């Protein structure tokens, strides 16, 4: 590749080595300090170690050491900023970084998996954004440009994505130039080309918060302050006036327990709704030439794009509460595995608060032929028995351990109840479990009270696993796993003939798909 020299007169502004905005030094500095405080405050304050330290070596010394530490951090941040540079040549992003040893990272557009633009509150004041570029090379190859101007980020993204699309589709660059001009508007004005597919309203977000449990996100944010909260509670417990009020609960244990449960549920629900609202405020999903883009967030405004070529599977998630409220959400799975637990984090492409009809309509936006069918084929009934045996074994083991540790052999008398208690669960699981093949699209539904339906074209399979235990071989059933580039999808206990059909069909489709010209993929 011919790389024009940085000083070359013909180079476009992006082709010269560029620095981050000078404000970035401040942000880096603050982030390091905040991280340090967040990680160490619970240890220092919680156990009283900080006080002990100050008493031991004196306040002045501690302050002096802290000052030296802060200055060192500031110096490191300054050096980091001075040595951090990036440029875009053609469709390749070069990043030069490193404090002691300077490294140059080269990210080709074709290898870019995911680009996200974030604008936290403190960056919004300066009109700056943070740009993340994910590649399949692991943590060392992730690029973050903290603190570049919104217009520059937009342009970098457009060019990287155009390059990526060019690699996939073979489109001409002039066309991409058009889009960059059209969508070159800054991230905070909110205007860009494309068709708006979905806008989440306040009601949808509240229902989404109710239906999905975001309370643990709030809990995780509060985790560093657990020590302080615990001490506060203890101080309240020691307070006699408060203890008298608590006496009421002791007098009416049933009402007290009920009040406690209601209070806890209300807290969790409120936290969940607040987190959902912070995360998805002003959610808007739009499409512009084969790319989907979503923007959302109240304090931390984020923007993500998804190209159809990189979409591996679409998941329609209806939680148990969501089914009561008639709301579901869609998670788009892209190349590169994101664990199910991470889907509420910013990395995954999630469309919240969808009504039933909206969800179905949106799936046809992603894949015109993709449809979620209501009636699925069930798997073999042997699944129920296998599930009961497996879970009962665990339950009986737990019972045995309990009996042994408590020294009460009468606990073992409950053993026959374990499979009986598990049977309805296994049956429920089996009833929901289903699969359906429509044209090229395979749909797999799982869940207990909720539903999680994964839809994907079978030609997206990277690998197919068939597993059969000894018992399954006797029954003529097999577990089939389609390993997509976004993660595995398993259909357990399929009749062996159906499993073989699906496998043969998928292998055939993979070949057909690969033989087609790249533009169709």
């Amino acid at each position, binding site marked *: 590749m011919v790389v024009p020299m940085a000083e070359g007169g013909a180079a476009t502004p992006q082709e010269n080595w560029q620095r981050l905005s000078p404000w970035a030094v401040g942000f880096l500095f603050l982030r390091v300090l905040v991280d340090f405080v967040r990680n160490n405050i619970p240890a220092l304050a919680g156990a009283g170690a900080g006080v002990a330290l100050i008493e031991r070596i004196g306040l002045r010394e501690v302050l002096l050491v802290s000052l030296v530490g802060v200055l060192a951090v500031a110096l490191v941040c300054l050096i980091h900023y001075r040595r951090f540079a990036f440029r875009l040549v053609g469709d390749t992003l070069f990043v030069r970084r490193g404090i002691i040893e300077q490294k140059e*990272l080269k990210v080709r557009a074709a290898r870019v998996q995911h680009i996200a633009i974030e604008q936290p509150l403190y960056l919004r004041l300066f009109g700056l954004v943070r740009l993340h570029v994910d590649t399949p090379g692991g943590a060392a190859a992730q690029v973050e440009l903290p603190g570049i101007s919104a217009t520059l980020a937009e342009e970098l993204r457009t060019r990287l994505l155009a390059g990526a699309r060019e690699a996939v589709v073979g489109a001409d660059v002039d066309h991409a130039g058009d889009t960059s001009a059209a969508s070159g508007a800054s991230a905070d004005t909110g205007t860009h080309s494309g068709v708006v597919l979905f806008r989440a309203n306040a009601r949808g977000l509240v229902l989404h918060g109710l239906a999905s449990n975001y309370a643990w996100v709030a809990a995780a944010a509060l985790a560093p302050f657990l020590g302080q909260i615990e001490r506060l509670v203890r101080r309240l417990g020691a307070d006699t006036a408060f203890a008298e009020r608590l006496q009421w609960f002791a007098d009416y244990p049933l009402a007290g327990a009920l009040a406690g449960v209601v209070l806890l549920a209300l807290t969790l629900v409120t936290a969940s709704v607040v987190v959902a609202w912070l995360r998805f405020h002003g959610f808007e999903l739009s499409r512009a030439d084969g790319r989907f883009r979503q923007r959302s967030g109240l304090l931390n405004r984020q923007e993500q794009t998804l190209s159809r070529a990189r979409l591996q599977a679409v998941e329609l998630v209806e939680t148990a509460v969501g089914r009561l409220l008639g709301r579901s959400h869609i998670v788009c799975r892209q190349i590169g595995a994101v664990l199910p637990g991470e889907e509420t984090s910013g990395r995954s492409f999630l469309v919240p608060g969808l009504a039933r009809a909206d969800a179905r309509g949106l799936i046809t936006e992603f894949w015109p032929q993709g449809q979620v069918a209501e009636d699925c084929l069930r798997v073999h009934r042997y699944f129920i028995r296998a599930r009961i045996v497996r879970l009962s074994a665990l339950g009986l083991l737990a019972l045995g351990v309990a009996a042994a540790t408590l020294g009460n052999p009468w606990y073992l008398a409950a053993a026959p109840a374990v499979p009986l208690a598990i049977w309805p669960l296994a049956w429920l699981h089996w009833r929901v479990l289903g699969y359906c*093949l429509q044209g090229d699209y395979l749909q797999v539904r799982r869940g207990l009270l909720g539903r999680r339906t994964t839809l994907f074209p079978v030609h997206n399979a990277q690998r197919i696993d068939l597993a*059969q235990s000894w018992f399954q071989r006797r029954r003529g059933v097999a577990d089939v796993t389609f390993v997509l580039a976004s993660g595995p999808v398993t259909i357990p206990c399929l009749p*062996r003939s159906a499993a073989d059909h699906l496998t043969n069909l998928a292998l055939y489709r*993979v070949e057909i798909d690969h033989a087609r010209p790249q533009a169709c993929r």
Partner: protein
Amino acid sequence: MHPWRKLAFGSRTARRLALEFRNDAVDVKNLPAWEALALAPISRRYAPCRLLAVMLWGVVLTAAVGLSPEFDDIPGVGDWRVAAAVAGLFLLRGVLVWIEARYRAWALREHDLVYRSGVVVQSTVILPLARIQHVETVSGPLERAFGLVRLNCYSAGGLSTDLVVAGLERTTAERVRQYLLGRIRELDDEPAADGGADG
């Protein structure tokens, strides 16, 4: 006829579900059937190689348990009995590993690579050649002593190896690797796969 073929239609539910199975676009009967594929066993030297590896660990751990004073204090259990139990477990494992190794089989078709492993839970992995991004051959010191090589195949998206064909003889593995690389080049117009970012 393969033994499971009879069994697959043994249960009424299985038969009904098989009939319900829908398929619109393709004449499934004429698709190449993977289940008709005859898998070839891997090298016979793989079983002794695995057994030796297990036994080496067994000897090391048994010696460690036998020589350490930690287990002298357990009342009613002599030092040698703990060591004997450890040795027994490793012997059992050795037998299982031997049987498992003799059951492993593989096949290379025009469009995919198939590898079967496991005795109680039998698992078959099918990797379409079109999906292979990168192939490498690996061999540890013990495998080298037996003239064996592992073939690691990587596909997109996965963080780990997608298919490990263990227990191939060196010449076979090298030929397969060359063939796979050739096929990848044929199938893929893009230049050879490289890392997402080069330093």
